[in-house]
């Protein structure tokens, strides 16, 4: 309890002490304020009444004016490729400013600059399927498409539109319009159409719609380009498979067409080949026929010669036959004549022979009678006649050894005696040989 009282006492003491401090502070502050007021009044007085003070004040006024002009910028520059629209706020008059310097009365004139250069708009928030504002397809799938739209402001219509159009036409008009059209168009097509099949058509449709729509706001759309289409990953995979399948199917179709064409080509080639072969065969046949005809012609020219040759041979044979016949009959005739002549001659010869024999016989018998008579008168006549007849037929011949000797005895030095066995002398052997030879030759002569 005492503790509580103590605390309360302490608090009261502290409160009393604070109040004292505050009173002190207030007193000091009021004295300071009165001091400052007095100082300021004296300073103003100095500025007004003192020479130096008036100069300082004039300098401050000039500095303030220069600063005001710098801040307000009454002259500005219109760059090349720009057009400036100056609106008078007081009169509402609109002036078009081309490139160069332009004068602006501050707080009276308002200047808007518009670029005349081509500008592009690419909705950067919709290029990927995962971006914050992707496009939607008819199936409700999010897709990103890189769209580039090139546009330019119509310089003719800028003055007319400047009054009612916002400052940034691109951001405030073009972009929302394009965005809306794009979204609407993509939402009318399937992903596949956007991705592959209808791309060009979409592009054309977009151009066709955007052109008049933006032209009303003085914007000329130059090109609409669709770039990369980004699909959700899973869909993309499936799509690619599908496309690959389609591609395969397409490929197969082309392959089949190609095959078909190849078949047709082969057929045509075969046909051409057949025709060529037929022609070649025909040509070869013709050549053969011509060659055969030429050969037949050559044969035809040779045949008359052959015929002539045969005729010639026939005539020659006939002539030969006739000549042979003539010759044969002549020969036969000649033979006959010869035979007759010969018979005649023989007969005559025989007669002559008979006559001769007759005469010779008579003469011989007469001779014999005369000889007989002579011999009977002289008998020695016989020996004489014999000796006469033999006298011319005796001759000496040295004969070679008959037998017992070797043919080359002389060369081998064989004794001479051995060859003549029983012989006494050389002379007697020779005589023997002569006699024997004589006898031989006589015998031979008689045989002859």
């Amino acid at each position, binding site marked *: 309890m005492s503790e509580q009282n103590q605390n309360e006492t302490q608090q009261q003491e502290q409160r009393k002490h604070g109040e004292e401090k505050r009173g002190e502070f207030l007193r000091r502050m009021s004295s300071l304020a009165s001091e400052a007021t007095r100082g300021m009044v004296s300073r103003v007085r100095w500025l007004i009444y003192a020479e130096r003070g008036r100069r300082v004040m004039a300098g401050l006024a000039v500095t303030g004016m220069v600063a005001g002009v710098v801040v307000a910028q009454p002259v500005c520059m219109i760059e090349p490729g720009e057009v400036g629209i100056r609106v008078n706020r007081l009169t509402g008059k609109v002036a078009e400013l081309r490139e160069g310097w332009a004068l602006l009365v501050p707080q009276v004139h308002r200047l808007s600059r518009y670029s005349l250069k081509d500008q592009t708009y690419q909705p950067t928030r919709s290029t990927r399927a995962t971006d914050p504002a992707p496009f939607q397809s008819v199936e409700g799938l999010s897709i990103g498409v890189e769209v580039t739209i090139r546009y330019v402001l119509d310089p003719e219509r800028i003055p007319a539109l400047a009054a009612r159009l916002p400052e940034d036409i691109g951001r405030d008009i073009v972009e929302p319009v394009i965005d809306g059209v794009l979204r609407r168009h993509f939402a009318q097509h399937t992903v596949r159409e956007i991705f592959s099949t209808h791309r060009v058509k979409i592009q054309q449709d977009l151009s066709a719609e955007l052109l008049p729509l933006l032209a009303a706001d003085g914007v000329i759309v130059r090109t609409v380009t669709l770039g990369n289409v980004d699909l959700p990953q899973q869909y993309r995979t499936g799509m690619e498979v599908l496309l690959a399948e389609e591609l395969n199917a397409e490929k197969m179709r082309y392959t089949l067409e190609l095959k078909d064409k190849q078949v047709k080509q082969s057929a045509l080639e075969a046909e051409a080949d057949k025709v060529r072969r037929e022609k070649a065969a025909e040509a070869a046949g013709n050549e053969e026929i011509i060659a055969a005809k030429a050969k037949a012609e050559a044969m035809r020219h040779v045949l008359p*010669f*052959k015929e002539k040759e045969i005729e010639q041979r026939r005539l020659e044979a006939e002539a030969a036959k006739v000549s042979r016949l003539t010759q044969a009959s002549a020969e036969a005739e000649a033979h006959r004549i010869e035979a007759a002549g010969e018979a005649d001659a023989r007969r005559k010869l025989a007669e002559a022979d008979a006559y001769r024999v007759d005469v010779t016989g008579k003469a011989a018998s007469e001779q014999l009678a005369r000889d007989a008579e002579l011999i009977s008168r002289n008998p020695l006549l016989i020996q004489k006649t014999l000796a006469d007849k033999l006298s011319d037929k005796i001759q000496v011949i040295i004969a070679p050894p008959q037998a017992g000797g070797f043919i080359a005895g002389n060369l081998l030095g064989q004794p001479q005696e051995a060859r003549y066995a029983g012989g006494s002398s050389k002379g007697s052997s020779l005589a023997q040989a002569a006699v024997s030879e004589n006898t031989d030759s006589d015998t031979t002569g008689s045989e002859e």
Partner: protein
Amino acid sequence: MLATLVAIALVVQDQAPLRAASQDSAPRQATLWQGEWLEVRGERQGFIQVYDHRRERPGYVREQQVRVVHLDEASVPRLQAVVEFLEDTPGAEALGIGYAAALLRAVPASQVGPELFDALGSMADRLARRATSHRSNDASLAAHLDVAASYGVKLVSFEREGRTRVCYDGEAFRRVLALGGSPEMRLRAALALTRPECIDPAMNPLERQALDEWRSTVLEQVDAGRLPAYLANRLHLRRAEVHAALSYQLSRRGEAQRGAKASERAVASLASVLKAELAEEDKSAYAAAAVRVGASRFASEPASEQPGAGPVLALSKGQPGETCLRLADAKAPGSALFERCTYGLVWPGSVRRSAQGSAVAVAVQLLEGWTELWVFHQEGEGWVLDALAPAATEPSLGYVELAGFSPDGSRVLVAREALVEGRIKSSFQVLKRDTLLPEKSADSPGALGAFQRWSSADWRGGTVAMR
């Protein structure tokens, strides 16, 4: 083991028995001929145990009747020596082909040269000649042909002039030409490949032309300058023959310019032959080539203008392949004195007219090697045409050409050359113009005074009859 695997036995004797066992009394399985290829499987009691893949049977054969060859690089020199020896041994063609096959198997591929194929081709060619020759007592011939065929040596046969002719297809020679080789080898190969007697007589004209063009390219592959003169002569003769044939075929198909070129080449090739170096065995070929060239030499003669008045010969086309000759008076070109069509080739460069204008002669080539002389001559008021054939034989090879007219126009000089009974027969004749029957005839132009006096300069300058 490997060595035994690659060992083979080549039969070196004809009629060697393949026995069922290694005894002489064992039954004979087959009769083997020289050159046959057997696989060696072992050796037993003086017999070699072999397997005959051709007949698909094993057996034994006496050691002396076969030569065992190891198909490795070490045996290459030995095999080469044997092949070189057998290359020129008549009657051993089958054995030689067998050895060549073994050598081909043993030698590394990089070392296979044209010599081996030259030897192979020579032996195959000789075997073909042996099969064609008249000798009928060659009992082993059929067996040798079989052995050669078993090695892939292809011999083709066809009938020509009533006889069967066997020819080698020339595979080895083609390889010789492809691989290079000495000039002699190339010549041998080219001559064997372009042999005229080995051309199939059943070929149609188009095939024949294609073949002749190929033959000319083959002959172009041989360089005549690097050959001895007597061998170069053979090449020139073959070229002359081929180009003469080509000239006719090309002209026949309407390619007159190429035909004229071929004809020029034929004449030039014939002129390249050195007569002093002509071998005895080539003389008949020389005469035959000259006749072929003579038959088609007018292809390269330009059409000559005939000066003076007289009948003019005009040529025009008739039926396909037909040429029509129309003799017209120069003064009245519209009226024809005589008209005649032919399937032969009429050579415009050969038209000659007698000085009096009473006879016009033209060469007409009816076949590849057969040229006739057609003489238009006046008989009374009209004109007649007489065709002079080279000889009164089956038209095959021959030509007759105009050598000139007598100054009074009453005699016609002709030169004839033709193949009669296998020999080329030349004759130079003086014919009466009105009958065209020979008045005088001689084997050489020098033997006839009329020829020396009256034969025309252009004939003497262009003819091949006075070779």
